[in-house]
């Protein structure tokens, strides 16, 4: 996921709108206010926040820089808890056996089993530590462009929402249509022509 790693995956965005002046202070404030918390919330299934590029686990933007040349570089960290289904199954079976023995019964109702399952899942979720995932972000403010070093759909969706919330700026994902629609290099008449294009077929004589 790191922009320094040997193999990279990159999704690109255009920043719609301008960041508030003074730019550096606005970015710093957005990062600090939305930095990932250092205290793990035992009830949270997922925690998202910013952390410095050079410090995945000490989210201190006073100590670590986020400026490199004219770029802003930092990371989005997503801490997620997930309990393997086989572990849940094991503890549910143990709890059901315990309950049957305590009550001297042979069967439990469907609702009782569901309650046991919910209780077991909640308990395990509290106990298990979350797994961190780090995604580097490269923001070129001069060109209003942003790269996220991940092409995972879920990570990109979380990033778009979290970036927008942190910096009050909308991100537009760059793909064929938006590469034309959000670029200054195209005239309106050219954009209109693109909008009217239809799929071509290499084997037939279909109009392009």
């Amino acid at each position, binding site marked *: 996921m790191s*922009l*320094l790693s*040997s*193999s*990279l*995956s*990159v*999704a*690109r965005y255009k920043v719609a709108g301008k960041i508030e002046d003074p730019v550096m202070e606005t970015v710093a404030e957005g990062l600090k206010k939305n930095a990932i918390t250092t205290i793990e919330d035992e009830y949270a299934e997922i925690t998202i926040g910013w952390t410095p*590029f*050079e410090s995945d686990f000490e989210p201190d933007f006073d100590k670590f820089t986020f400026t*490199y*040349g004219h*770029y802003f*570089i930092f990371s989005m960290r997503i801490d997620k808890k997930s309990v393997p289904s086989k572990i849940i199954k094991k503890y549910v079976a143990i709890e059901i056996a315990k309950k049957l023995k305590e009550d001297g019964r042979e069967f439990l109702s469907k609702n009782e089993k569901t309650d046991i399952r919910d209780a077991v899942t909640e308990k395990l979720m509290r106990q298990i530590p979350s797994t961190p995932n780090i995604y580097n972000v*490269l923001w070129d403010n001069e060109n209003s462009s942003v*790269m996220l070093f991940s*092409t995972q759909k879920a990570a990109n969706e979380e990033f778009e929402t979290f970036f927008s919330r942190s910096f009050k700026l909308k991100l*537009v*994902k*760059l*793909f*064929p*249509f*938006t*590469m*034309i*629609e959000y670029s200054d*290099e195209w005239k309106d008449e*050219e954009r209109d*022509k*693109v909008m009217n*294009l239809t*799929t*071509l*077929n*290499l*084997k*037939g004589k279909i*109009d*392009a």
Partner: protein
Amino acid sequence: MLDIAVSYDKYKFLGNEFLTWLWYLIETDVNIKDMTQIECNTLVLETGNCIGLENSLGDDAVEKISIRGDDAGLEEGRTALKKGGVVTDINLVLRMDENEWRFSIKGESMNITSLKVPSTEKIEEKDEIEGAVLERIYLINTVFEVIDTLFKTFIKKRISDEWKTVDLPAIRTWASL
């Protein structure tokens, strides 16, 4: 303006057609360097070890063909093109002067994956991080500069009057060889 999700689906064919056109350029030895404004002595694009194609069979049915291996080749792919297929993703090698980039690109999203840029000096001291990062960014941006320029060239051609009379017949001829 179109909703983003709608426009993604409606115009994803442009990305697939762009990759098909790129493949045509590579296979017919078109000088790609002349299409870019990048300052260098040599610029060559080659197909890498993977290519994916898709052929619409109508009624939302789609035939997908994935060709892998160092000789990802090209006969099977060309057969798919002859049946009306388009390239949906392709692994490419970009050689510029003595440097080499390898990456895969997906037509509908234009996402780049498995990007390997030319190797740079290993970071040994903390104060070397900024220099290494900026060099990395330069190398990453180079790939996008090439892709963006080629995409722009493709779209200009695609909306030009010459597309139907010059480019499309040439691509059809190549695909049917």
